């Protein structure tokens, strides 16, 4: 008897709960996942979602300290694959609003520190960078020393 009552109550409440969920989804929009270039990521999505930072941390120590240069979990490879082309030419930073890294991190409210140092766009092998200047060209620091 009691069980039937609970079921009836649940059935009554169900539409209300669904409505509440809908409005939640509206309040915090889901991230837009920009599709990468290749067929599939280096590991399946569920794994990458949960463990990408563990893998990147591990890889960074391996590369930095031991000179291991495997590409599977290299941040450079992530950027190469996930950066999108801008309509005006060149690549958009993966750290720009709405782009691959940023959209998820904004949703999860987690700051990305990687791109304070790391390039957030693929390398431009083909284009010589304009504006690079030889800082000391033509005038050496004068040092008088006896050798």
């Amino acid at each position, binding site marked *: 008897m009691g069980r039937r009552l609970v079921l009836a109550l649940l059935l009554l409440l169900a539409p209300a709960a669904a409505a509440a969920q809908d409005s939640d989804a509206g309040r915090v929009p889901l991230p837009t996942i920009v599709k990468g270039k290749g067929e599939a990521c280096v590991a399946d999505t569920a794994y990458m979602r949960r463990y990408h930072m563990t893998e990147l941390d591990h890889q960074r120590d391996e590369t*930095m300290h031991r000179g*291991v240069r495997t590409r599977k979990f290299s941040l450079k490879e992530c*950027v190469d694959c996930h950066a999108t082309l801008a309509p005006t030419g060149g690549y958009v930073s993966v750290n720009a609003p709405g782009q691959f890294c940023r959209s998820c991190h904004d949703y999860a409210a987690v700051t990305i520190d990687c791109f304070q140092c790391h*390039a957030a766009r693929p390398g431009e092998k083909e284009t010589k960078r304009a504006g690079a200047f*030889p*800082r000391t060209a033509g005038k050496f620091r004068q040092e008088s020393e006896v050798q």
Partner: protein
Amino acid sequence: MTGRTPQQGFDPQRRRFLSAAAAAAGVTLAPGVTLYGVTAAGSAAARAPEDPVTSSVRWGLLVDVNKCRDGCNACVTACVEENGLRGNGRPETDAQWIRKVELRDPSTGAKRSLPLMCQHCASPPCVDVCPTGASFRRADGIVLVDKHICIGCRYCMLACPYKARSFIHEVVEDQKPYAPRGKGTVESCTFCVHRVDEGRTPACVEACAEAGGDAMTFGDLNDPNSRISKQVAAYVTDQIRPDLGLDPGVRYRNL
């Protein structure tokens, strides 16, 4: 996760070997003339990407000061371009990984012009003083800063006798993908570690050869058949401030 700092300890055995080699160099000078151009780049056997570096290699650089032209800045320009060291027009604080130094002997007026960069010391004081383990020496002798760990205290800058390090004061943008750099950390010459790991020579060495100077030889000091090993065996070469006992990987000839 690996240990943060697999540092190479100071190796007195190797030090003795090196000083013995330097002492013997004067005697073997005569037949040494044919040694130029025996091996190409002097790079060690190619390493697979998954293999870690080992201490069987010690990267070194030899600068022939006689060939380094006064007024030539090709190495500095190449370094700036390669590593994306675009400054903010403030020479006092902009990063500088390699610089040209002019030396003059006041008693004779003799002048020398030479490039100076991180000397990749075998017993680096920058590593000794670093409180976090960010400054470290890779097994193959390349001294680096792990900017993930560096707190920007600049202790290493004070400890380095060669003024080789720079602190990054301002936000850096558009870094090269292979050369991450950022505000609040210290950096210095990496021997172009990203190129070395691919079996190439540092950008300065390549630029010097292209500019017709050919003053720089990069290679494995542990490989007796490398061009650099043959040269340091055949000619008298100097380390700068050898009295400090740091055993720099950069040596100078005709200083």
